[in-house]
């Protein structure tokens, strides 16, 4: 049985300006011990997806449909109390900005202890020992002293480590990291990515890492899901996405990034236009106004939403171009430019 399975998850928010379709029919599977990278630009729906899995949109104005199966339990239809009992224990989250995710009035230790004692019937003393253990495991020096520090006394990197210790304190089976290193400096980011890789091996959790940085997903992910306008537009094994990408948007992302491992190119190959507003998603293929290859499929993209279809061995693409056309464009027009 698949450990985590999303089936056609939709999260829509009614607003005064119209219905915001943040997540619009998302499906994927994830096994224990595997890492899924979700990539997308701002407003692509990647963070809403993660909060949706954790059930953090329940009780709000969000309209949620579809199914989220976690270890044999369906969460969308489950009661908020039940989902709450799973949160922190069975699934937990690492947030982007640890300074705003932690409470400034309580010590780091108290915050770990609180979560641990909610899910485990232990004394404060035992819980504190556990908190010290966890802080030590994520590489915080002198954890027995630092456990009594307040979040502001930690540096950015240490705070993110403490955040990771907090989310791992109850041994979760599903860990969602939402832009875990975006707020950090590059040398500290490297430390945190190493740490997450090691911890995942130890804990054998399923990890979802959400980011806009293709470099970060390449470091950690087994599978990659590219989101655009609330939908998955490409999904596949990390090697497939980086070596044989088939969606024009993925090509655009790869062409937009200057890279240290390649010769300096004369010009970057950006995607024209701007990411769509989710209130007013373009008709048909959401990417068609920015797509350089849109004229080649006879204007179908303007009216028809392409289906997410498998091109080969678990590699899914949502595009009107035929498989042969896509492969031809990648091999003759895109790849040579990226590697020149």
């Amino acid at each position, binding site marked *: 049985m698949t450990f985590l399975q999303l089936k056609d998850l939709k999260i829509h928010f009614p607003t005064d300006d119209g219905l915001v379709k943040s997540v619009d029919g998302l499906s994927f599977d994830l096994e224990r011990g595997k890492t899924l990278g979700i990539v997308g*630009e*701002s407003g692509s729906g990647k963070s809403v997806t993660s909060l949706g899995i954790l059930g953090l949109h329940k009780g709000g104005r969000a309209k949620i449909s579809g199914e989220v199966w976690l270890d044999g339990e369906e969460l969308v239809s489950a009661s908020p109390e039940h989902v709450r009992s799973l949160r922190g224990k069975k699934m937990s989250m690492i947030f982007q900005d640890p300074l705003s995710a932690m409470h400034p009035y309580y010590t780091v230790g108290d915050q770990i202890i609180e979560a641990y004692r909610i899910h485990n019937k232990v004394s404060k003393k035992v819980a504190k020992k556990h908190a010290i253990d966890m802080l030590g495991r994520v590489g915080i020096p002198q954890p027995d002293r630092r456990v009594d520090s307040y979040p502001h006394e930690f*540096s*950015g*990197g*240490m705070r993110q480590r403490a955040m990771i210790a907090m989310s791992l304190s109850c041994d979760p089976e599903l860990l969602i990291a939402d832009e875990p290193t975006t707020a950090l*400096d*590059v*040398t*500290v*980011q*490297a*430390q945190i*990515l*190493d740490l997450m890789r090691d911890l995942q091996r130890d804990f054998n959790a399923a990890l979802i890492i959400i980011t*806009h*940085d*293709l*470099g*970060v*997903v*390449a*470091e950690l992910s087994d599978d990659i899901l590219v989101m655009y306008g609330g939908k998955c537009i490409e999904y596949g094994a*990390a*090697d497939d996405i*980086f*070596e044989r990408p088939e969606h024009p948007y993925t090509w*655009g*992302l*790869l*062409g*937009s*990034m*200057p*890279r*240290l*491992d390649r010769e*300096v*190119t004369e*010009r*970057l*190959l*950006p*995607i*024209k236009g*701007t*990411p769509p507003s989710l209130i007013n998603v373009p008709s048909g293929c959401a990417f068609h106004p920015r797509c350089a290859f849109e004229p080649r499929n006879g204007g179908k993209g303007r009216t028809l939403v392409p289906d997410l279809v498998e091109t080969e061995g678990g590699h899914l693409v949502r595009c009107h171009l035929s498989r042969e056309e896509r492969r031809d464009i990648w091999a003759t027009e895109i790849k040579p430019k990226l590697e020149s």
Partner: protein
Amino acid sequence: MTETILSVQGLEKHFPVTKGLFKTQVGAVKAVDGISFDVRKGETLGLVGESGCGKTTTGRLITRLIEPTGGQITFQGHDITHMKQGKLRPLRRDMQMIFQDPYSSLNPRHTVGAIVGAPFRIQGIETEHGTKKAVQEILELVGLNPEHYNRYPHEFSGGQRQRIGIARTLALKPKLIIADEPVSALDVSIQAQVVNLLEDLQNELDLTYVVIAHDLSVVRHISDRVAVMYLGKIVEVAERKDLYASPMHPYTNALLSAVPIPDTRQREGRERIRLTGDVPSPLNPPPACRFHTRCWKAQEVCKTTEPPLAELAPGHAVACHFPENAPAKTEAPATVA
């Protein structure tokens, strides 16, 4: 030898730390602590470093948005270090700044026309066909619709706002532009658009850039020369090619190896240098070589003597007692591409 447009010698900025009712000074944050570099006409100098290394302060000192504590700044032959605002104003025409955050650097109550036209008003410049015409030409130059003259910043996306900021910078046809993290607040696909725009404008208008950024790949793409800063000091400065192909300072090496590469094939087998700990506080920086607390090559001498920024190969200067990739004294300098 190309002309030097900007020259910085021993520049310092110490922010006082005060305590108590009478604000007695108890210390100083040495944000920039004695840095020297030249910027040649028509080139792009990249200034990289982690947060707190003083790169933004350097940018603000050069543009005289803050007052330097010590050192000297020479711009186009004028010593502007402590120049009075009135005398500085005519020079400001030639030296402009692009800010990081396109949301907070544009006045929400002003129209695009007023924002981009402000430099003309402040400098009292009359253009041939009026300011409106001049502004519309600049809007077109940076890829915005000139008809959006009367719109407000909130009607634009992040990338378009950054273009408005760039248009304002270009209004008076400056010679030197200081760009402080010009693309870091933008989405990946928009970053590339703005980077390309900056390069096109440089070719078209013969601009000189100082680009301040933390993203080593963006800096590599855009710069001709790169200076690496650590805790208020320049630790290495070199031609782009030399710095990325054969970095000499251990810190530069560590920075480069920490950048994640978007290629799964390189996940294994890439040489990694992992620094431990964070950047120390600039309030109380380590003595002598400031990097010695995190450096794996550090020895006794690093804790007692500060290494000078010395040119070990033509155009490649480094401040380290034990530089890597350094050419032997008799050998020709290494130029591995």
